[in-house]
């Protein structure tokens, strides 16, 4: 996955309508009209969302017929999921250490106060 494509993919995923479109496409190909149906949006609006997804490489469109059905491109999505997992791990691990760090800082502080009172 190219670097600029990664950024485009994340930007594309930032929108709930576009995530809805992807969810729908995970069940199979669909035309723009079919994709527009569940959303309260005009067809041009849906087309714009589809263009964003297409530019990001998250979907592709058939060459056949006027309807040019949309289909999901799964490889980039799996790449993105990998990042999310990695970032979650980074913070979970860091928060574990922060928890331990704060406990020892506090213990040291308490001990310091106790020693001072002696």
């Amino acid at each position, binding site marked *: 996955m190219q670097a600029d494509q990664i950024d485009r993919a994340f930007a594309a995923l930032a*929108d709930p309508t576009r995530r809805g479109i*992807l969810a729908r496409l995970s069940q199979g190909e669909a035309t723009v009209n079919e994709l527009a149906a569940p959303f309260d949006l005009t067809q041009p609006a849906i087309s714009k969302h589809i263009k964003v997804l297409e530019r990001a490489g998250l979907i592709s469109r058939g060459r056949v017929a006027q309807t040019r059905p949309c289909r999901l491109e799964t490889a980039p999505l*799996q790449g993105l999921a990998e990042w999310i997992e990695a970032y979650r791990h980074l913070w979970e691990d860091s928060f574990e*250490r922060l928890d331990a760090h*704060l406990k020892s800082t506090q213990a040291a502080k308490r001990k310091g106060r106790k020693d001072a009172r002696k």
Partner: protein
Amino acid sequence: MPANKRATAADAAFVITRVFDAPLSLTWKAWTEADQLKAWWGPKGCTIEVASLELRPGGFFHFNMRFANGQEWWGRFLYREIAPRQRIVWLNSFSNPGCGITRAPFAMAIPLEILNDVTFAERSCKTTVSLRATPHGATDEEIATFKSMHGSLEQGYGSTLDQLAQVLAQVSAKVSG
């Protein structure tokens, strides 16, 4: 929410919240002092060496992550907002030793910059830390495009990465199924 809600609201965010059994004063120090940050922040198994820490909007936390196998990755936080004992907003990315922004040093689809927004709240001597992270990049332009398209995009945002994860799960189930 403060004015910069716009910057994050439209993004698919990664959210993590944790209650620490420590007062806010200590927790804040742990996030803002170099020798404390390096004690806990970072990928597993690395030792953080702090090159600089300038806690102000536009300032950098620049650090080297050293791993046992001799590997070194440089990283940086570019601070955007600091509200003492309340909130820190920063852009996180990999960098070179000169603090210039770089792509991840490994093959993974990672956004060039990640916008992090962490808030702190104290209650009964415990501190709740909530972090929201969103990929940062082409987003502003995209938001602008879609804002001009229709003004109702504000509603329905606030979606979390969990929703995204759900979509991804559906997708990968389809792929392996």
